[in-house]
């Protein structure tokens, strides 16, 4: 407890990994160019999803503003896992590094996990089972519990030494969460962007077909986190629309152990979000870890951590 002390205790533990703050940059929303600004803000680093081989991504336009949000269709542009690992050191801010992976097949996921298994810089692996923009990827074969279970099981055995986090989309999230847990996931990231479409009425054409993110989806993400954390025993990482400190609190109250900040980092300094969250905790004389599930007294067990 930190009642009365001057700075609240922001530390949380995620799958056995100690985090100095519960904030994590959402995959694909923090580039190396922007790292300078985030010293001390995040509890762990989480670069953009990497794939077995390089992806050029989708043609522009790739982003469109929507009410309280944006739709993106990046298409997992990335240099491929080998170059990714060559450059990984730039993401070393002295905090744990989580690596997000995605592929088109179970073998892709398994292969990526094997590749990461031996790399000591990687504290945990996040499986992007949900990118709505790669039609032949995530969604296509990760839509249901069966495929989720298959992919997670393959990754589980491929990277026995590190926690794996399954990142799920909103559609069918509770069943998929149970399947991922059953297959050995140590944690779940809930949720990814929601499939959406924007249209340019003046030009009468589709502008961007992709995934919706930002505050617009916060109530949907909160419900997913609340329901999932009530249905599984592993820790849940909240993602979706966090834009201020109160949002972080809401996700943790709903049952999240840590919270990802994505789109908001484009429009605000994430440090302000941490400061606001800190003020919230101070106000209530609470430590960050005490918030998780406080809403209903449920706290996900922190077992399953394979921390190094």
């Amino acid at each position, binding site marked *: 407890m930190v009642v009365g002390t001057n700075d609240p205790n922001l530390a949380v533990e995620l799958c056995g990994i100690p985090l100095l703050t519960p904030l994590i940059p959402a995959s694909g929303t*923090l*580039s190396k160019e922007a790292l300078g600004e985030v010293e001390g803000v995040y509890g762990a680093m989480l670069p953009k999803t990497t794939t077995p081989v390089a992806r*050029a991504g989708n*043609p522009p336009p790739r*982003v469109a*503003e929507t009410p309280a949000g944006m739709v993106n269709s990046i298409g997992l542009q990335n240099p491929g896992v080998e170059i990714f690992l060559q450059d990984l050191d730039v993401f070393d801010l002295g905090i744990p590094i989580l690596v997000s992976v995605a592929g088109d097949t179970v073998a892709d996921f398994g292969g990526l996990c094997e590749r990461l298994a031996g790399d000591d810089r990687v504290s945990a692996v996040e499986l992007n089972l949900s990118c709505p923009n790669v039609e032949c990827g995530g969604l296509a074969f990760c839509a249901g519990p069966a495929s989720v279970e298959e992919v997670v099981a393959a990754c589980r055995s491929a990277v026995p030494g590190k926690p794996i986090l399954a990142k799920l989309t909103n559609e069918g999230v509770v069943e998929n969460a149970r399947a991922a847990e059953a297959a050995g996931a140590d944690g779940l990231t809930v949720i990814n962007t929601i499939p959406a479409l924007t249209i340019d009425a003046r030009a009468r054409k589709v502008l961007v077909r992709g995934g919706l993110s930002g505050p617009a989806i916060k109530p949907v993400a909160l419900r997913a986190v609340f329901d999932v954390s009530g249905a599984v025993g592993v820790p849940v990482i909240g993602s979706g629309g966090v834009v201020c400190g109160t949002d972080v609190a809401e996700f943790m109250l709903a049952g999240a152990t840590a919270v990802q900040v994505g789109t908001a980092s484009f*429009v605000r300094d994430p440090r302000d979000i941490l400061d606001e969250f800190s003020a919230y905790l101070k106000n209530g004389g609470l430590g960050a870890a005490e918030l998780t599930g406080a809403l209903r007294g449920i706290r996900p067990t922190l077992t399953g951590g394979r921390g190094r």
Partner: protein
Amino acid sequence: MKFYNVKVEERKELGNYTLLRYRWNDGPIEPGQFVMARAAGYPVTLDPFLARPFSFYDYDGETASLLFEVRGRGTALLDLASTIEVTAPLGKGFRIEPDLGRAALLGGGIGVAPLKVLGRRLDAMGVPYDVFLGFADAGSAVVAREFAGAEVATMDGSVGTCGTVLDTFATLEDYAAVYSCGPNPMLAAVKLAAGEKSLCQLSVEERMGCGNGSCNGCVVPVRGGGYVRSCVEGPVFRAEVLAW
């Protein structure tokens, strides 16, 4: 991304465009660089959600100014704002090679914006240049008076030549360097007109999510395949780099 809350020191209407001036003494600004900006109000208001990219129109070491055209809700709100939120200067601007010789500055519509501060820099470096501007109509062309001696064209023929900026000159052959900003289709045409021999630099206009390289949203296709982010690798590119 960090945003600075700055007071609007001056608001001036130049025909269809609005000029906003604010104090900026936190580091240098390169011609062609831009800021992400929006009317102040975060976090109380989330509308519009994203900030908008704007080139620096002018900068005197003390105050910077933006010149913009009201198009949608973001610029509509910006136009009313007495306080705005801006980022530090972003992206890579125009590279100037002093000894090349005469330069041509080509602007299309609001693409004129970065040419003002670019011209100042060229003057300072003693580089001779000519300015060619194209606009939709007289209302947009008003800003041309800020560019003494500029050749002007309007689509409706109300001012100068009738046509686009490309109709304001016979050839670009005599220019060692070509600097241009405007809608992407115009830039593609400028690239063609400039040919291979000159140093041709284009400031591209892509939709941006973040402005600092994080979202991969603002990409342009490059020669040799693939895409690069115009907010960090650009917005100014050497014409030959672009796969247009």
